[in-house]
């Protein structure tokens, strides 16, 4: 049966037998870069059409249904439109930073792909601090938003950027603490180690109460961190037109848009890795037949299935709940999520020490 790691190994063997090590490395890096960009484009298209369809069905609408069968090529048409549109820079904007900001957003989103395990033994960069790396690099994201808001020379943009900054800085705490609960159980920050520790059951089942609390807090915090409704105060189209990307048009806007969806994908991938077992298939105790049937499904399908399930949950949040006010948002974080996750981490530590998890 084919798998990503086999393909990667074969390519590696062929390259090492044909070229010298330096060139092999360079070619492999180029291949990885092209794959990441390709994945970006494909995911962008899929996620945009998915969001539009999910939102439509939740609101008892039809959604896009003109371009292609059932409107499935709508996002392709949108991309084409954004590509040919003029990217304008407003007068009085800080031109250098204005043009730099979308690229930083994009590069950060790309860097975040490095430690994610897409399938069995298939990973771009096996860091021994994978999870910490993700939460560290994703904190650069806020810089691109602040930069965009500032350099647009627009009050709405600036307010959106400030809100977004306050929001991301505060929600990073509870996201980090909920990740830490799983790290306490696993004893490792490396993504493959965390996945391997779930071979006999996903953490959300093995870790029961603290894991479930951590999972819920993680979902809320990453929804806020990726600036999506009900925490989309940074954009808040009814108050701030479009927040930090009010002045952006054409491809520069598209880069912000794409980076947002990529961040959603990445946080969901991390959530799937930590709580739902990454590429590990679903196993139930000693049911040999059932477990074999589950093993037969490729690991990449498991990974993408779980990730897309979490993405659906986040979209479901978005189209169900109304937007929070800024004081409600900060109250929620500092008065509820942070104390709960601190208490939760103590509980998780206690469980890890006493061995109460399964």
């Amino acid at each position, binding site marked *: 049966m084919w798998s990503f790691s086999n393909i990667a190994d074969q390519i590696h063997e062929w390259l090492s037998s044909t070229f010298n090590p330096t060139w092999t490395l360079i070619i492999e890096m180029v291949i990885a870069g092209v794959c990441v960009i390709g994945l970006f484009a494909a995911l962008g298209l899929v996620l945009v059409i998915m969001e539009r369809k999910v939102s439509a069905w939740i609101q008892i609408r039809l959604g896009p249904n003109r371009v292609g069968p059932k409107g499935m090529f709508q996002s392709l048409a949108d991309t084409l439109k954004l590509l040919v549109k003029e990217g304008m820079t407003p007068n009085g904007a800080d031109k*250098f930073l204005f043009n730099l900001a979308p690229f930083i957003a994009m590069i950060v989103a790309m860097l975040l792909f490095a430690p994610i395990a897409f399938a069995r033994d298939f990973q771009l960069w096996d860091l*021994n601090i994978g999870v910490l790396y993700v939460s560290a690099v994703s904190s650069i994201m806020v810089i691109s938003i602040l930069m965009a808001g500032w350099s647009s020379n627009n009050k709405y943009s600036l307010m959106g*950027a*400030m809100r977004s*900054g306050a929001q991301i800085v505060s929600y990073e705490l509870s996201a980090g603490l909920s990740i830490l609960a799983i790290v306490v159980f696993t004893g490792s920050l490396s993504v493959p180690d965390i996945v391997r520790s779930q071979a006999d059951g996903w953490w959300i089942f093995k870790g029961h109460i603290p894991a479930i609390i951590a999972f819920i807090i993680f979902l809320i915090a990453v929804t806020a961190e990726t600036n999506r409704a009900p925490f989309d105060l940074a954009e808040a189209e009814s108050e701030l037109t479009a927040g930090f990307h009010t002045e952006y048009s054409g491809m520069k806007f598209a880069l912000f848009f794409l980076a947002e969806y990529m961040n959603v994908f990445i946080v969901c991938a991390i959530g799937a890795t930590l709580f739902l077992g990454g590429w590990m298939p679903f196993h139930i105790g000693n049911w040999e037949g059932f477990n074999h049937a589950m093993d037969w499904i490729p690991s990449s399908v498991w990974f993408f299935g779980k990730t897309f399930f979490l993405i659906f949950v986040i979209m479901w949040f978005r189209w169900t709940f109304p937007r929070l006010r800024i004081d409600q948002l900060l109250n929620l974080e500092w008065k509820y999520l942070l104390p709960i996750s601190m208490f939760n981490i103590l509980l998780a530590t206690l469980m890890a020490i006493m061995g109460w998890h399964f």
Partner: protein
Amino acid sequence: MKGATIIFYLLATLTLVCGVLSVTTRQIFRAAIYLLFSLIGIAGLYFWMDYQFIAAVQIVVYVGGIVVLIIFSIFLTQQAGEKLPKQRIDRKIFSALAVFCAFALTMLQLYQHTFYETADEPVPATVANIGNRMLSVKEGGYALPFEVVSILLLAALIGCIVIAMRDKTMNIEQGTLNKEVEKGK
């Protein structure tokens, strides 16, 4: 030249050029951004040396924390968008001199210090090792500085809360004062 050396020089150039730009630019927000790139360059150097934990901490603390704070305070200052006035030439000379002296001092220290090669095996920088070392009270452990830093942070947090807390009694006093003023009218 090996590939690793080229990457080192690229990272070093990024760090230094951005550092110089951050003190020479006349727009304060750009200075913060250049500082950010300089710090990212240093994080890149840590990654280059395979000290991944320190690199990630560098990004979390400096890039995600301190630079964001600096940018926030820039946002909250007035006229932050305007260009700063040109510095006087004597100030420039003095600061250049100060930088040069500090640089010379550092280099002197580095050249005078003798670095020993140890025969010990390098300690793998796994999370378990780092955690144990952080909380160890034996030789080479960081329990004391760790606790001191956490108490400092706690004090800072409490201080922030005290400053930010609304003083109810004062408000009431002001309210009565206002009423008295109104009565006086």
